[in-house]
């Protein structure tokens, strides 16, 4: 299991578009991909849970990947979140 702390940067937070792109990306990995924030854990492969997590600009999250391709998943997904998720 590998993890990394990241801050959500895009202005509007985890709205439809970034959540949708992020979940599609996470679904491409075999490992489980979870986000821990505000004491809750949510499955990054679900756009619904991602949006329901209420992540805003400035929210601090921990990205946790677990599985055979966890290193690659963590590197690519964290880079995507840090890049502002296409916003």
């Amino acid at each position, binding site marked *: 299991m590998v993890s990394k702390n990241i801050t959500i940067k895009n*202005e509007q937070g985890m709205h439809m*578009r970034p959540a*949708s792109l992020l*979940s*599609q990306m996470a679904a491409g990995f075999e490992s489980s991909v979870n986000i821990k924030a505000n004491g809750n854990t949510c*499955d990054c492969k*679900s756009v*619904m849970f991602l*949006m*329901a997590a209420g992540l805003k600009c400035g929210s601090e999250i921990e990205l946790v990947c677990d599985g055979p391709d966890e290193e690659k998943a963590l590197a690519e997904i964290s880079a995507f979140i840090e890049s502002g998720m296409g916003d």
Partner: protein
Amino acid sequence: MYKGIAASRGIGIGSICRLIEHDLSFEAKLVEDPVAEKKRFQEAIDSFVKDTNAMADDIRKNIGPKEAEILLGHAVMMSDPAMSGEMFKMIEGGQCAESALTAVCDMFIGMFSNMEDEMMRQRASDIEDVKVSVLKKLLNIKDVNIRKVAPGTVLVCKDLTPSMTSQIVKENVAGIITEVGGNTSHSAILARALEIPAVLSVPGIVDAVKDKDTAVIDGTEGDVFINPDGTVLSKYLIKREEFLAQKAELEKFAGKPTVTADGKELELFCNIGTPRDAKKAMECDGEGIGLFRTEFLFMDNASYPTEEEQFEAYKEALETMQQRTVIIRTLDIGGDKEIPYLGLKKEENPFLGYRAVRYCLDNVEEYKIQLRAIIRASAFGKAKIMVPLVTTVDELRSVKKLVEEIKEDLRSEGIAFDEGIEVGCMMETASASLIADLLAKEADFFSIGTNDLTQYTMAVDRGNADVANLYSAFQPSVLRSIKNIIECANREGIPVGMCGEAAADPLMIPLLISFGLDEYSVNPVLVLTARSIISKWTKAEADELAAKIMAMDSKDEIISALKAAAK
């Protein structure tokens, strides 16, 4: 006449087509063959996804990619493991597809509708829309084909869902009336994108009308008439022509620079009252912000707003404007406003009393919080500081001294800011106008506030109806004052703007061109109007008119001469 929320401008006249909600009730039952039920559900989902993608394609072509995303999002939501996955599990457990769909969707609707963020709450209505669409598939209900309505149709419905909006053919739909929805709802956004006049939140309208009734809707005012008489109808036919002609005329100026008929480029900025208004200024093609009033931060607060709160608000406006100028006016408030925590006393003459820069310079520690917040925000765009109600050069010097102290503090703390941040002077008192030559040596820029300048020059309370006839920026004294301020700024080589209502007045604009005003700051909705008027005048024509006007001795004579010369 019915009243609603004016959500999309313009006049719509046409024949009503009601989009009635279907009965979507079903009997929840346990299924005996979960495999067959899962197959039935999968077919409904496939059909839904296919329809949704086709609609999204339509929207992308007819409206734009951003709007199409709303619908693509619907397909993504339905395919989500947390959505359909959960539903399939429930069906395996023996529930019917309708129950499974409803239960899971309702759970998410509950979650989203309790969220703080308005954008996220909107997701609840997206899920509702998905639920209804899939439920219709399961129950074999077919909707009115909105795509096929006849030209000149006015759609009337409870609420316009994104999937309904996506089927609208712009040429055939003359207007939209709904019972629910506000200015930021999907229906409003899409109606504006399609430029279809829309009035939302008209209570009971669906039951009050029949198909084929004639409807007249005014999406600018929020008025709706059903089967109006000939007088109303002809009045609105004319209004529609005027609206369309005006729109076509103004659209020529969108995205263009602001230039006079002889090619001199001017700046056309907007006046705003909250950081959110900055978005509006951008949408309306404003080239910057000429007046950002900061009173909202103080009026709606229980205590003096913190540096952080203020910083965030200024930063938001600056980032929205993307390196365009944002002139932030420091607190302009006095005894006429009730702000308990400021401890301002009731005064005999609050407009001549302890207010604006006078109050601020007497409460330096508070004032420094605001100045520091603005200077910190200057790292995120092009901010300028504007001081209101200046009457002496010393006041401006004192503010500049504070600004220098704060910059020194920030430097030693290693906090970024714009070293070149300008400090300017609001020109709105008779005194400031009379010493404009002296102030111009101290200020980085001027901005003329015509409303207060008129009030203080004419010694007229603008709220008092008994003396209101004296209150006019076209009074010879006020015009002389404006001219003097502009000339003093030009002589000293500093930029001069105007942020009062007069800056967008078609009668005033030629005079301002002649006097040499650099920057016009107007209400965002007036940007294109002002740009169009500026484009009609050459400096020579404006000079000729101004010479005549400045020789006249009464405001009535001046106004009628300006009206006669208007283009």
